[in-house]
């Protein structure tokens, strides 16, 4: 191989290697699977117990020092609010990290469902964040650093539960906003989140996630006919710290019935896996193509003439 073409080959290889080095940690983080911290905490939400009092919304508002609501928290008329042509019920936003919605079901009458961050074991928001703002704490909370949030909002696209919200109203410091399991003020100190504490019905049971799974299964077993035989969140999307029991099929109360049990990151791993391959193979392959093309081509390009002469003597590799 000639001096010039070797130099060019090296230039290409160096570009590739630099990029491979960059890709190193990416691959390392992408492989393997994580099934959650052993003693992480969770909450079991029992929809059969919720009476729609909205006290959890009030407690959250107070605990997280959110802006005052437009309507009182004991105003049940919010359950009749719909959006986007009646297709959507209330959702979490920058002013409300949790909301309760009412679903009028055929079999069980009104069923109330609390929505908040489900604190996935393998959070999609976390894996999609390019500034690594999110953290899954050993306690089970998915928290985030607002001070590095660039505002790309990929986490909102990634969240299968439509949970993270964005402070679109702010021009100076807009960041993602979501339930953080009351991590700073409570969870870290071993206390239940504010919504759990206020709930008059114990519709929210706080405990170790592994215990909650047993408790949930026990409730289904010992109360025949009360629940559909499914603990939503035990396996969904790799498992969530917040899990649900319901008396009606989950799709009737606004859940995605078939999210699959694969964590979102598994859909991305294949692509991330090809990255180092491309970085490693492409430089050699295309430089090889180049040398092959040079050998057979009988072109008159002055820019490459010098190289061509040498290239003919050198190999194609």
């Amino acid at each position, binding site marked *: 191989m000639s001096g010039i073409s070797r130099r060019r080959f090296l230039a290409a290889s160096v570009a590739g290697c630099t990029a491979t080095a960059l890709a190193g940690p990416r691959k390392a983080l992408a492989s393997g699977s994580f099934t959650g911290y052993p003693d992480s905490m969770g909450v079991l939400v029992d929809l059969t117990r919720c009476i729609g009092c909205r006290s959890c919304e009030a407690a959250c508002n107070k605990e997280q020092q959110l802006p005052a609501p437009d309507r009182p928290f004991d105003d049940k008329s919010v359950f009749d609010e719909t959006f986007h042509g009646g297709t959507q019920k209330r959702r979490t936003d920058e002013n409300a990290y949790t909301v309760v919605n009412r679903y009028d079901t055929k079999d069980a009458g009104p069923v109330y469902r609390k929505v908040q961050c489900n604190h996935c074991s393998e959070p999609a928001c976390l894996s*999609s964040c390019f500034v*690594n703002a999110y953290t899954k704490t050993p306690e089970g909370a998915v928290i985030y650093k607002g001070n590095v949030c*660039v505002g*790309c909002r*990929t986490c909102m696209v990634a969240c299968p539960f439509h949970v993270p919200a964005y402070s679109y109203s702010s021009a100076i410091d807009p960041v993602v906003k979501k339930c953080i399991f009351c991590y700073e003020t409570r969870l870290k100190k071993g206390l239940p989140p504010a919504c759990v504490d206020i709930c008059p019905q114990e519709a929210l049971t706080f405990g170790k996630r592994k215990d909650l799974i047993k408790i949930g299964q026990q409730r289904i077993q010992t109360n025949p006919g009360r629940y559909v035989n499914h603990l939503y969140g035990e396996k969904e999307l790799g498992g969530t710290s917040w899990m649900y029991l319901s008396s009606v099929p989950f799709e009737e109360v606004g859940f995605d019935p078939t999210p699959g049990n694969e964590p979102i990151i598994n859909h991305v791993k*294949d692509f991330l896996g090809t990255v180092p391959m491309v970085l490693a193979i492409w430089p050699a392959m295309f430089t090889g193509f180049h040398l092959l093309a040079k050998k057979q081509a009988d072109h008159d390009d002055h820019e490459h003439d010098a190289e061509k002469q040498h290239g003919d003597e050198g190999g194609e590799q």
Partner: protein
Amino acid sequence: MKSLIGWGVKPVDSHVNEKNDKQWSLVQKLFLGLTPGQYLGQALRNPFNWILGIIFAVGLPLIVYRFLFGLGAVTHASNDYPWGLFLGFGLFVMVPLSASGFLLGTTVEIFGRHDFEPIERLALLNGLLGYLFAVVYLLVDLGQPWRLPYPMFVSFGPAAVLFLVAWHVATYLSVQVAEVSVAFFEWIGWLGGKRFIRRIAIGLTVSGIILSTLHQGALGALFNYAPGKVHPLWFSSPFQWIHFFCSAIPAGLCMVIVVSTIIKKTMAWRCDSNFIDNLDRLTLGLAKGASMGLITYLVIKFIGVAHDNEWAYLATGWGAWFLFEMAVGVVLPIMLFAYAVRHQAVKLARIGAVFTVFGIALNRLNTALIAFNWQLYQEIPHVFEVIIAITLFAIYVVVYRFLLYRLPILYSWKALPEEAFAAEAAKAAPVKISGSPVGAMYRKID
């Protein structure tokens, strides 16, 4: 401009003013060798500038408004639809249409198809500007654009696809700046810079291929984070990145056809014979390449449908929309290209290219906006959002035109005699251009 040329004014294409044998100053080069009065006159006579003026008059204040009052004031980007037109169009459409840079770079530099050289620089510039404005759209869309360097320098999320996109787009932008700088160095007359870039051209091109493969694919892989939100016909977990990468190939090639067609119609005065005379042949060559890309894309799209057994969706309204996209954006251009190549019908190839660009743009808009959240509701962009997107595109057009007017993209820079000598020393075979006193062509003519 045409009328000025009719009056005997010649736009700058060399370092020396033919009339007085003096070197053009940089300012004179910026005014294309016209007097400021002449320049302003031609600008005002161009009705297109008036349209641009109206767009800017409405759009620029809105962009200021967006930064004063936040995204919520100008967009319908919501908690359910975090990405609106700025990313749906600005990022996801602009980037595949800018694949031209690495494609023509590969064709010419790697595969040695030097017969494509007359259009290589246009393709490189098209790539550079497309990426640059994808970043501009991104800056308008980001909640805190001043934190854009964070993933580079402050806080790293290396396992995120967007991290890869950010790094690769940033790196690739620099690669493209380097590639296009050859034309800039000629224009300002700094041969050293040009020679340096030529020397590392292969390295640049190969890194261009790597980076393009990965981030074109990565834009598709971004939707792998939302497997349940994008309609299954526009989402295929194992193949999404290949779909995006593969469709970027015809998109980039056809964008060059479309841009060169517009140039031929509106900017012929700026093109030299090397560009104009070769354009028809090159258009058919690009069309051939694009049709190979489109056929592959069509096949793997349907492999995607078959792999996840999504045939039943084709019978729904979404299926009809999907088939429309495939028919108009993929099948129709394939047929047009096939006919055009066989019968040397360049015009049909150009029409096919327009359909391809439309089809790929529609595909990206479908994936990012229309078929996104297909189980929720349809979001219609805010009118301000549309206006800002159009304004940014108008700035893109203006910058594009500004550079085409000046840099030797469409024409060859006529080097000074001493430069020509230097070029000759570097085994150049200078080609005489008829009627040119300075004469020696620096760049090769096919």
